[in-house]
């Protein structure tokens, strides 16, 4: 499929998602309120996008649209993670849409448009494209965060998300422009080529300032300390299915872009070059961000009473772990971690969303008292997801952490790995605390039985199978990722 020299195939997933999103929106305009139709259409579009991404596999690394978009192993794998995240989010939102009487069409359309932004972000090989993709994500998610309009908490969270998100975007943009000033290009491949040689002193100054700004912008988007302030508030206030979405798919996309820009483009080459001059600085900055995120996230999570806030701080801590992988420049380990994180976090939030019930009311950890044996279909999966988040052997969380730490150790980040492992130990406390409350605390009032929908059961099956499959038999996914890594190697530089 090629006309006017444009290779549409390369943006196949994005085309599918955009068309589906517009279709869902139009259908809603002409015959509103058909949740099943819109939902199935959206889900079909997302699955088709995943297929389109897989179809890029055989192409090998190709660039298109004036090298603005790239199709390589990193993109294919992260697109699949995002697709999985969106699919599970659609399932998690299923009963929530009925309960809150939310018009389903716009909700699904926004979800799809956000996903378009994410897959484009993963595919972007140009800082201009990267900025546009990031904005597509954030503008869609601002609206989603404030979706429960009559609830003040939701509106407040949308406002905070918007103000801080737009603020960080401005930093990101200024960073992009300064880097453009230093290298005369916004294209990442071209930039890597220019930075493999020496630059003038003034250009180096511009480059440093630009990269620092870029780091601030990215820091906001992937929720790392000290740019995390919005996270707990937004995660708490946003409708729970939206929180589930925010904490997984956009984060995976953000880390993919982080990897592409920092680990691949700004990587040190071991020779006298601008890239090496720069690398020593960004590596120490990212190291600091990683340590702060892990430590702060885990320790503050301990004192939380609201489970959504607790999971928000846990999400900050996990961002810290993932940054170790970014430093080790092992994108496959990061990709695997994000896949696992998406599965366990979405699974956990699915239960939190269900238990919160109408109006997001039962969200305190104390509200989970007595859930244990009264509704085992809720409590046991939640316990498994929490244990996996903590990284217990046998679950996917362990394998992901192990791989990440192992490759960081090999890359010479031993201190960082030690801090990461110690932090993991701390995190066990607050994850298991929820489990203890569920099983060993008596409830103050009668625990209601919550009917479990088919959509919820599907989410559980997918997430649980994923957590155990990746925890016990991860070799096939490893092989897939290795193949993807080779695919990248041909394309890079």
């Amino acid at each position, binding site marked *: 499929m090629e006309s006017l020299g444009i290779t549409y195939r390369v943006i196949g997933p994005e085309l599918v998602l955009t068309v589906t999103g517009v279709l869902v929106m139009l259908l809603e305009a002409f015959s509103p309120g058909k949740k099943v139709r819109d939902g199935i259409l959206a889900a079909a579009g997302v699955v088709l996008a995943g297929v389109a991404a897989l179809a890029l596999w055989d192409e090998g690394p190709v660039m298109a649209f004036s090298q603005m978009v790239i199709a390589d192993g990193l993109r294919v794998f992260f697109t699949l993670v995002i697709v999985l995240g969106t699919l599970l989010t659609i399932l998690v939102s299923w009963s929530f849409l009925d309960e809150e009487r939310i018009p389903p069409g716009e909700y699904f359309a926004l979800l799809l448009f956000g996903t378009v932004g994410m897959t484009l972000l993963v595919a972007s090989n140009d800082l*201009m494209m990267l*900025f*546009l993709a990031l*904005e597509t994500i954030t*503008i869609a998610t*601002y*609206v989603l965060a*404030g979706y429960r*309009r009559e609830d*003040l*908490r939701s*509106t*407040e*969270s*949308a*406002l*905070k998300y*918007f*103000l801080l998100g*737009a*603020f960080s*975007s*401005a*930093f990101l*943009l*200024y960073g*992009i*422009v*300064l880097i*453009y*000033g230093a290298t*005369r*290009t*916004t294209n990442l491949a071209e930039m890597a080529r220019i930075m493999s040689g020496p630059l003038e002193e003034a250009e180096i100054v511009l480059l440093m300032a630009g990269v620092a700004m870029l780091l601030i912008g990215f820091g906001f988007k992937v929720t790392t300390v000290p740019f995390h*302030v919005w996270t*707990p*508030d937004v995660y*708490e*206030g946003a409708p729970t299915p939206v929180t589930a979405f925010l904490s997984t798919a956009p984060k995976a996309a953000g880390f993919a872009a982080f990897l592409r820009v920092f680990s691949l483009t700004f990587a040190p080459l071991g020779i006298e070059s601008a890239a090496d001059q720069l690398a020593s600085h960004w590596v120490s900055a990212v190291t600091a961000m990683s340590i702060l995120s892990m430590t702060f996230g885990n320790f503050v999570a301990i004192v939380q009473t609201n489970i959504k806030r607790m999971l928000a701080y846990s999400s900050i801590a996990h961002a810290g772990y993932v940054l170790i992988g970014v430093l080790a420049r092992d994108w496959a380990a990061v990709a695997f971690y994000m896949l696992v994180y998406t599965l366990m976090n979405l699974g956990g939030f699915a239960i939190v969303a269900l238990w919160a019930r109408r109006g997001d009311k039962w969200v305190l950890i104390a509200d989970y008292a007595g859930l244990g044996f009264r509704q085992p279909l809720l409590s046991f999966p939640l316990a498994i997801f929490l244990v996996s988040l903590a990284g217990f052997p046998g679950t996917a969380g362990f394998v992901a952490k192990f791989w990440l730490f192992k490759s960081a150790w090999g890359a010479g980040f031993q201190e960082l790995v030690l801090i990461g492992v110690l932090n993991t130990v701390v995190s066990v406390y607050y994850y298991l605390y929820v489990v203890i409350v569920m099983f060993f605390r008596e409830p103050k009032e009668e625990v209601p039985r919550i009917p479990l929908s088919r959509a919820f059961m599907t989410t559980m099956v997918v997430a649980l199978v994923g957590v155990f499959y990746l925890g016990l038999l991860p070799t096939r996914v490893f092989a897939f990722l290795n193949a993807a890594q080779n695919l990248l190697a041909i394309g890079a530089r």
Partner: protein
Amino acid sequence: MTTIPISWYLAVAAALFTIGAVTVFVKRNAIVMLLGIEVMLNAANLTAVTFSSYFRELGGQILVFFVMVVAAAEAAVGLAIIVLLFRHRETLNVDEAQLLKL
């Protein structure tokens, strides 16, 4: 006629960016904060155009068009959220939006 050196343009843009950032930090009115963010975006635009004309390369100017569109979209969504909050609260002060502890 002497031409203005490029550093002056960059300095003006940097000053604008700082003014915008300080506005966001200091002001508590949501709309004024949005204004500050717009000033920051335009400072970035000015820098992009400066480099673009200095390099005789069009990339920077194209970026500016996209940024303008993004800024407009962002303002539309942002103002909608601010209006929504105003309906709940009858105030634009972000410090009073404290149901979620910071």
